[in-house]
């Protein structure tokens, strides 16, 4: 279970990947991954390819990231959610709030 962060050379693209379960225990790590990224127009890609499970507090954490990105004119893209994680995103109808790339 971990949060990994990669920043592109021009620092416009920030990729955050979550391994294993994405739940409240990652709260602090997840926040730390984006809190200092305050440049204008950054794109935060949340890579969920290796995420096995996600609970509702994880959905809440994604909304906080969305708020952060949008307050700096940036955006959040969710990338490659696994089948079970996608099911959770679908129930929460998150595709109507942000971009989800399969």
């Amino acid at each position, binding site marked *: 279970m971990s949060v990994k962060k990669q920043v592109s050379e021009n620092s416009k693209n920030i990729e955050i990947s979550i391994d294993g379960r994405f739940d409240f225990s990652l709260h602090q790590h997840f926040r730390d991954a984006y809190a200092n990224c305050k440049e204008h127009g950054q794109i935060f890609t949340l890579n969920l390819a290796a995420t096995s499970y996600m609970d509702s507090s994880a959905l809440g954490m994604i909304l*906080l990231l969305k708020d952060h990105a949008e307050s700096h004119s940036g955006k959040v893209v969710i990338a490659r959610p696994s089948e079970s994680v996608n099911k959770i995103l679908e*129930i929460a109808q998150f595709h109507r709030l942000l971009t989800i790339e399969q």
Partner: protein
Amino acid sequence: MTTFSEKRHIKLALVVDDSLMQCKVLSVLLKEEGYRVFTANDGARGVAMYIKYKPDLVLMDINMPIMNGYEAARKIKGLSQDNSLCPLIFITSMDTDQAFIESIDAGGDGILVRPFSPNVFKAKIKSIQRISDLYGQVKTLQQAQQKDAELAEQLMSGVIEARNFSRDRIGIIRQAAELFSGDIQLTALAPNGDVNVMLGDFTGHGLRSSIGAIPLAETFRAMTKKGFSLFEIITQVNHQLYDLLPADLFLAAGFVSISTHNASMYAFNAGLPDGYLFSELGEIKYQLSSTHPPLGVLPNLLPDSQLTVVSIAETDRMILISDGIVEARNEAGEMFEFERFEHAAKQGVLEGNVSKHVQQTVNNFCQDMPQEDDISLIDIPCGGWQQLLVGSHDFEHFPDKLLSDTSIKTLPAWHWQLSLRGKRLGIINPIPMAMSQINEIEGHADHWQSLYTILTELFINSLDHGVLGLSSELKASADGFSEYFKEREHRLRNLEEGFVELQLSHHPVPNGGRVIIKVKDSGKGFDITKYYKDRDVDSAAKLKFSGRGIDLVEQLCDSLDYQENGTVVEASYVWTS
């Protein structure tokens, strides 16, 4: 809060050593530190003394007759109360790693190896006492917090569960992962006899996730009671939670309104797993999937949001669940999933107790695995909700002989009217306003429920058939109602002109009164004579998918007259106290 040890001021120490000399030396040092000292010369006697005096500190030798120090330490630590650590220090001359490790394993909190100076001894006692005090503080705080949480939970369930409608007929599972459940189930009765039900799941669980529950319950109940439609309630709840909660806290919720009257269910799912409509044979008739993000995420509902309308039979059951059920895990890490749930729910429907059967099946599946999330379900019977409405008294036979129709010709005690035009007709629901006028002027009373039904039916008829020009023939099949509802939504959205005018007048008489309701619309009207003739034919042939509303109004009213080519309807309702 004062604990026993604080009350008695003088601290007690117990020295357990088979050497009388050692006992004496340690006693002197302890007394200098303000302790009152008891001594025992073997382990067994030490345990007995511990039970008798409940000391604040134990000093223990290792090698002793009858029972050695390790065994005595294990016994004492097994006995010590939750609230105090009762520090235990081994005093020994065995300066080996093994002795040290065994001392700690036996439950010792420290070890002191002879020889030591009196000052080293006293410093050790002080340090161990400091840890012990800290432990006591933590325990006390923890208990205080637990008590507060229990109290808050009692208040919460008092506000939420105790005030739910029909707790005997609506099945509920409410199994919280912590003391506080982040899940909430609400049921309330609308003035027209519809039953509104909500199952909600706040983000996470515990106290943090239940702060939104009380305002949510209040809004849901008050708006249902005042006669707002389910969609208006959902819109308001979303708005309220968006204002109230931080960005990462929201409510996944399913809403259902059972209308026996229309043989339909109105439903909305914002972020919950699928809800299920079961027939009495346990077949899945409809699955209510989420069509909206959870409530409290967006400032307003998405523009294309609307209720789903599903035809129901009286024997159907509608079931809503939170994700805690389908995501419950067993020891092998498998989830309960939808397939197991559907099977368990079907069995429950057949056995006549859905909540009990599902709860048992989930708990058998999970065995002793700790529960990770709140588990909740609500099971609503679709029939048997017929409400007893107080019909109008026959004005001709009113008890007071002094009365005649002349009282109607006099000026009313009060008159209220509202005319809604164009777009406003699609946005504003005038019925709660009218009811609130009546309740404010005449006070709350049971017979106003009938008035609510009369007002609602007449207003909806004028709006639907008059202004929107919808034909009730659309409703002529079992699924027609949902078609009708869709078309109605569509026309309401695009409504630019037309009006409906509502008028209420109250003519009080001794011990009662007469309310005259007049509704006028901008529609084309209809052939009143033909309408009555067709209706008689239909009712003889029992072709009744529409017109139930008007039948009910006629039963409730003293009189009902269509005027001006059907563009005006006037009803009279007489009540006695």
